[in-house]
Structure formats: structure tokens, C-alpha cells
């Protein structure tokens, strides 16, 4: 039995409505408990901000990131955030680290932990390549992991939707999650991945997918219905159509509206829209491009069925990676950049392209502003998850820097002062004076995630929750984030302590221990007769089209590190 008593912590835990109150936290055997014995190890946290461990609910940290690694080996030596990037030699406790946007797996674990983060969700697992994702998960130390499996351009999915077989569709989703050991349903540019197989794209919600006679709207509604039928812990997680195109804010709002009629099967949203920054563009071309954030935020403020994340841009080099194949082709052509393109057989597409966000480019400056506008114009922080869509908008190691943008108008003004007049005319950020406090920041980096993924043991400090805790050397009330943003950045860049399952993994910003994390996946129960009927259909797919057999396709438990199976009961 191991016991720890964290004394006099200044606790900020929105899940319990605790806003920077001084209290003690007791830990026993990896969980938060009511009290501990006198033998408990005592940690003095007086004067230190204490939150649940951070939870990155949308990051590209295992799988496609590897394509980024081999396309840009020069990323290995980039050291733009000293202490959290670049080449670091092996020590007694840590393995060698390299990279910035595409760090090696060990560096991903260490660096998230240094920021006080303890759980990550890989945002895109192609079913066919899931084994590789889990192999990388295994080598990411410390963190708990989970991933979202891609279903948005899948042949079997589109056929069941076209043929109006919702029960078999749900059975297929349950099987797909099991095959990939995934946690939830990701939909990327619904139908677009399949269209890309023919060198095309879909232009909006009602543009039929070639050869399948279904529309993106039908795919979204079909998958949402299956998601709720299976009572999955997460809602569908949607990367909207028309990403990265001027004028796409309309498609985004249209997509959000579509979900008003979806009834969630659990106490959570019925839709999560991801990296909305890339989907909140107004204008009709790159010439008259401008922010669409006010329109999107306006809609979100009046809606109560959805959550979203930012996809905040960080100036400097980034590495874009997405299942949205046609978008990456457009990026590569427009920027004359390197391009990786992959066809995931019957399932999806994918692309990877490096790019550079410059404050001198008016488009990039407006993109930077849009992420912040969304965070600040949406009134309820419980609808917002902070992300950079790492490393699409920028590497996660920049989170502390981005927090200063959210917390300080003065800091924003400093960055904005470098923008061109044209950029300023196309954004509304300079007129926004809202500054987030530590409580709201905790909501966007922890509490929203716990709620939206139905993970009550994560993202909060309730008795019974996992003892994943971040303690930062900064005291709300004694520091004014709006002027002393340098202190905010420093404190969040290296936690005074990070606890993972009750174990001290980071102390004074340095790695102390590197335990293995858990892997969460969802096993949804489906009636046997429906499952059998569905299996017949996919057996045909494997025989006719796949390059692998079904037996080799399934990820087995032995591939998972400390697997945690979340069971759900499908309603049929």
C-alpha cells in the first residue's frame, strides 16, 4: 500500500466547482481517497496551483506521426522550445530524445508529463493500420492512451447506410472498434476519403460519394445513430467537410445543426467537432479570406448538444497529418511542399505535408487569430477543448505559450502588433478583451475532456478518481496572468510535480519515473445473430479486396499495454 498526502495545495478542480481553494489531497494505491494514514509520504504544495493531470483529447502522437518522422528527419534537431524539444541525450532515467513536431515516442511521453499532462487521445487510427498505432503506444511512457478509429469513408459503412441496415452498421462499428482496439468513432471529411480514391473530393454535406450513392450528411447521421445505439462513451468525433477552404464556416455550422436532432445515449454531447479553427473560414477565396469564428461561435453559444476543440495555430514549423487526403494534396500543391499520400484500402485516405505558419503571412495570422477567437467568443468553457491538433497547428510543447494568449490580452496585442493591416482587417481578435482565468483553463484542458469522453476517473480530483495530478509552481491570486504571462508560461512548461497513478513521474520539471501507461478501448456488445450476419458481409470484403486476412487484421490484447476494456451494451 502506498500513500501520499499532498498538503496545502491550491486546488482548481472545475468538476467539483473548486476554484483555487487551499486543501489537502490524499492518495492511496493510485487513487484519490478521503484520508490516509500517518505513514503517508507528505508533499508540501503550499503556494502551488494543483489540478488534475492534463488530458489532450485530440493529438496525433502515434501512427501517422511516423510518416512525418521519415518525411522530415530534420525535425529531429529542431529545438524551438528548449527543454521540451530538440536532441536530448539519454540519462539514467530517460531514453534519448529528438524532435519538435514529430518527436520520438519516448520524448512524447516525457514532454507531455513535464507539461502536467497524463492522458492523450490519438485522433486518427485507420483500422487497417491500428496495430502500428498500438506498437507506438507501447513505447510512449507514462501516459494513459486511447485512440479514435476512422469510419467516415469506409466501404462497409457506406454500404450499410445506403442499404438502410442500421443494426448491421452498429455491429460493424462495434467490430471495428474491437479490431482496432479503439475508443471512439472518428469521421474525417465524410465521404471525401473515398472520393479521393478517384482523384476527387466531396464539396459539401449533400454531394454524393462516387459509386456509393450516399451523401456526407447520410454518413454522419448513420454513424451518429450507430454510435448512440452502442451507447459509446464518446460521441462521434467529426472533422468537417471542406476543411481549410475559405467559406467553409457555413458547412461547419450546417454540420453542427444536423446533429441537433441526434439524441445522445449518455450524459454527454452528441457531437464533437474537431480543430474548428481549420473549419471557421469566411470569404470566397484566399484573396478575400477572413475569419468565420464569430458566426461559428454565435451558433455554438446557442447550442447545447456539442463540444469542439480549437486546433490553435502556433507560428513556426508544423507538420500536417490527416485522413483528409484531398486537403493534403491541395496543401502540397499550394505550398510547393513535400507530400505523402496513402490509400487505406477500403477504409480511408491519408496525407502528410510539412508547413510553416508565419506571422507575416496574412492567411496564417488570421488562422492564428481564429483559434483564439473561438476560445474567447464561446462563452461556456465546458464546450471547448484546448488543442493545437498537434502537430497540425503546431507541436503540443507550445501549449504553455498558447495558454498565455488565452489568459492575457496584452500578450495577444504583442503578437498582433506584428501583423499586417490586411490581416487585422480580416480578424476580430483585437476587439476581444476576455482573458481566461486558471479555472476556465482547467476546464478546457481537463474537465471538458473527462465529460466528453465519459471518463469520470480522469480530469478531476474527486475521491475515487485516478491520482493523475499536476502541481504547478504558480499561485492564482498572487500572479496576474494578464501582465505576468512570462511566469504563467514558465510554470506550465515544467510542472513542480506530475503524479501518474499516484506515482511522482515529474519533479521540478524533470522526469523522475517512467511507468507504463494504460490503453483504453471500448468493447460494445451486439446481439449474436446481428454480429453473425455482419461478419458474412465483411468476410466477403476480406476475400475480394483486402490485402490481409481477417485473422491478421484484428489487434489482439497482447498488443496493448495494460489494456482497460470499457464495456457498453448496444440497444437493438
Amino acid at each position, binding site marked *: 500500500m502506498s500513500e501520499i498526502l499532498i498538503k496545502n495545495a491550491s486546488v482548481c478542480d472545475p468538476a467539483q466547482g473548486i476554484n483555487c481553494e487551499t486543501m489537502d489531497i490524499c492518495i492511496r494505491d493510485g487513487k484519490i481517497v478521503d484520508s490516509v494514514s500517518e505513514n503517508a509520504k507528505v508533499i508540501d504544495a503550499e503556494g502551488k496551483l494543483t489540478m488534475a493531470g492534463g488530458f489532450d483529447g485530440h493529438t496525433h502522437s502515434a501512427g501517422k506521426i511516423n510518416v512525418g518522422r521519415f518525411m*522530415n*528527419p*530534420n*525535425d529531429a534537431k529542431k529545438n524551438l522550445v528548449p527543454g521540451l524539444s530538440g536532441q536530448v*541525450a539519454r540519462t539514467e532515467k530517460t531514453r534519448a530524445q529528438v524532435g519538435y513536431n514529430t518527436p520520438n515516442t519516448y520524448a512524447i511521453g516525457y514532454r507531455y508529463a513535464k507539461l502536467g499532462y497524463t492522458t492523450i487521445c490519438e485522433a486518427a487510427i485507420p483500422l487497417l493500420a491500428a496495430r502500428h498505432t498500438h506498437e507506438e503506444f507501447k513505447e510512449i511512457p507514462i501516459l494513459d492512451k486511447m485512440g479514435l478509429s476512422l469510419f467516415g469513408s469506409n466501404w462497409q459503412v457506406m454500404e450499410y447506410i445506403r442499404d438502410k441496415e442500421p443494426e448491421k452498421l452498429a455491429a460493424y462499428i462495434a467490430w471495428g472498434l474491437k479490431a482496432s482496439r479503439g475508443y471512439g468513432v472518428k469521421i474525417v471529411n465524410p465521404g471525401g476519403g473515398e472520393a479521393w480514391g478517384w482523384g476527387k473530393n466531396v464539396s459539401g454535406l449533400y454531394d454524393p460519394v462516387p459509386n456509393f450513392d450516399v451523401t456526407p450528411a447520410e454518413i454522419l447521421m448513420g454513424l451518429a445513430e450507430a454510435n448512440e445505439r452502442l451507447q459509446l462513451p464518446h460521441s462521434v468525433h467529426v472533422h468537417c467537410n471542406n476543411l481549410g477552404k475559405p467559406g467553409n464556416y457555413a458547412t461547419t455550422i450546417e454540420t453542427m445543426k444536423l446533429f441537433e436532432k441526434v439524441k445522445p445515449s449518455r450524459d454527454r454531447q452528441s457531437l464533437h467537432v474537431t480543430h474548428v479553427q481549420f473549419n471557421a473560414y469566411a470569404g470566397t477565396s484566399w484573396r478575400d479570406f477572413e475569419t468565420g469564428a464569430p458566426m461559428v461561435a454565435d451558433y455554438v453559444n446557442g447550442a447545447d448538444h456539442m463540444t469542439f476543440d480549437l486546433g490553435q495555430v502556433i507560428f513556426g514549423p508544423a507538420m500536417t497529418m490527416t485522413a483528409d487526403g484531398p486537403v493534403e494534396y491541395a496543401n502540397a500543391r499550394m505550398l510547393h511542399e513535400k507530400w505523402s499520400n496513402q490509400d487505406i484500402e477500403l477504409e480511408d485516405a491519408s496525407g502528410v505535408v510539412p508547413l510553416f505558419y508565419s506571422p507575416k503571412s496574412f492567411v496564417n495570422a488570421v488562422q492564428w487569430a481564429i483559434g483564439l477567437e473561438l476560445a474567447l467568443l464561446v462563452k461556456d468553457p465546458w464546450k471547448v477543448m484546448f488543442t493545437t491538433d498537434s502537430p497540425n497547428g503546431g507541436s503540443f510543447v507550445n501549449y504553455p505559450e498558447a495558454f498565455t494568449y488565452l489568459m492575457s490580452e496584452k500578450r495577444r496585442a504583442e503578437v498582433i502588433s506584428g501583423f499586417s493591416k490586411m490581416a487585422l482587417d480580416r480578424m476580430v481578435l483585437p476587439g476581444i478583451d476576455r482573458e481566461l482565468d486558471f479555472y476556465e483553463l482547467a476546464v478546457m484542458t481537463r474537465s471538458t475532456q473527462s465529460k466528453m469522453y465519459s471518463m469520470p476517473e480522469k480530469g478531476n480530483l474527486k475521491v475515487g478518481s485516478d491520482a493523475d495530478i499536476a502541481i504547478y509552481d504558480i499561485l492564482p491570486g498572487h500572479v496576474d496572468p494578464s501582465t505576468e504571462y512570462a511566469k504563467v508560461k514558465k510554470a506550465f512548461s515544467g510542472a513542480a510535480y506530475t503524479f501518474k497513478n499516484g506515482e511522482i513521474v515529474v519533479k521540478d520539471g524533470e522526469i523522475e519515473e517512467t511507468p507504463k501507461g494504460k490503453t483504453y478501448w471500448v468493447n460494445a456488445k451486439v446481439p449474436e445473430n446481428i454480429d453473425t450476419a455482419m461478419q458474412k458481409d465483411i468476410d466477403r470484403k476480406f476475400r475480394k479486396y483486402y490485402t490481409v486476412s481477417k485473422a491478421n487484421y484484428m489487434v489482439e490484447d497482447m498488443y496493448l499495454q495494460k489494456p482497460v476494456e470499457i464495456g457498453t451494451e448496444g440497444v437493438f
Partner: protein
Amino acid sequence: MQVVKLSLKKANKIPIEADNANPDNFAGKTAEEIGAIPVWYGNGQCPLGDLFNVEVEGSGSVENTKIVFEGDVSRVKRIGQNMSAGEIEINGNVDMHCGFGMKGGKVVINGDADSWLGCEMAGGEIILNGNASYYVGSGYRGESCGMRGGKITVNGNTKDYLGEHMCGGEILVKGDAGLLPAISNNGGKIVIEGSATMPASEMKNGTVIIKGEVFDLLPSYKEEEGTEEVEGVTYRKFTGDVNVGGKGVLLIK
């Protein structure tokens, strides 16, 4: 003026990475202090003084510091990496990545240089009185901008991929260059006095002058655009590489 003389205590088979061995790190320091600077030796670090005899004469600022490597250092990599000023003289052969990312100062090599000489160099000067291996003045793997400034003079020959991804500065090769010099260039100037094979492929920008024989001129340089005179010599002029919509200039005798 400070002169630091380094000589290997014994020839090494396991490579030494002497990326700390530059005037910026040595200026104003005593022999003892320099000997204590850590360098990588294989997969571990050890003090420079364990591997080299260190002699120091005088003391000076970075600009006034000269480092002399006596003898063969053909298993010592990264000498002069990131140096900003001062001088390094190497009296022997040198290993890979000499002058990597250097920003100023001068490196003189009285011997041969292994690959990646002056890789991603931004300023200063390298004079090689011997032959160079592959990737002189190029970019690190994956980098789209290689040499950005400064000058490299090779008094001997170079192997393949000379000035790959170069986007600034100047390279002069008195001898022959190997395959594909100036590949994927986007600026800068390369002069090859000897021969070259398949020059300037995928060049976007920059100038390449070849005074000797050109083997296998790429088909994308088919159209000759008249002639141009440089320092009294008349060259045939080509623009390209058309495959990438390039505006680079290739001058051939």
C-alpha cells in the same frame, strides 16, 4: 591572440563528436578549462583532455582565437560546428560535418574532408586543400535549405551531391565534381572548374558555372538560350530546371 593546439593522444577508431571544439567555446580559456569541455566519444561523453593534448598560447576573444588540430583527425566529426568567428586549422584529414552550420570565421583544412563539409553553413569561409567527399554545402536530411551563406573553396575534387538544396553563399571547386551537383538548389552560386555529371537537376534558383566537361546534361536543359560572358569567358546559357519551373542559370562552356 590565442592559439589552441590540439593533438590526439592516440588514433581513435570510435568516432569523436567534437561539436564543442570551436573558437566560441575556447576563447579566453586555459588549457585545463578547454581540456574539461565534454565531447561525445562513441555513446558516452568524456572530457576533451582525455582524448587530446591541449596546448594554449595567449588569450583572446572569439575573433582572435585560432584552433590548430595537428595530425590526422579523420575520426573526429563536427569540428567547428556553429562557430561564429575565429579560425580553425586542421593539418590532416577530417571526418564528417566539419563546419556544420558555421556562421562566421574561417576553417582551413590541409587534408581531405569527409561528407557534409559546410553543411547548412550560413557565413564565414572554408578552404579545403584536398578532396571532399559527398554533400559539400548541402542540407541535413529532409531540410529544404542547405548552405545559406559564406564561401567554400575546394582545391581538389568533390564527390556527389555538391551543394544539394543550397540557397545562398558560394562554392568554388577547382577540380571535378561528381554526380548531380547543385541538385534541388534554390539560390547561391557554384563554380566547378573541372567536370561534372548531370548538374543542376531540380534547381529552382541560383547560378551554376561549369568550366570543364559536362557529362549527361539533363534533357530538361535542352533549350540553349544564347550565351553569357563571365570574366571574359563565353558560356552557353541554360535556364531551369524546367521540371520544377526553375529560374536558375546554368552556364556551360
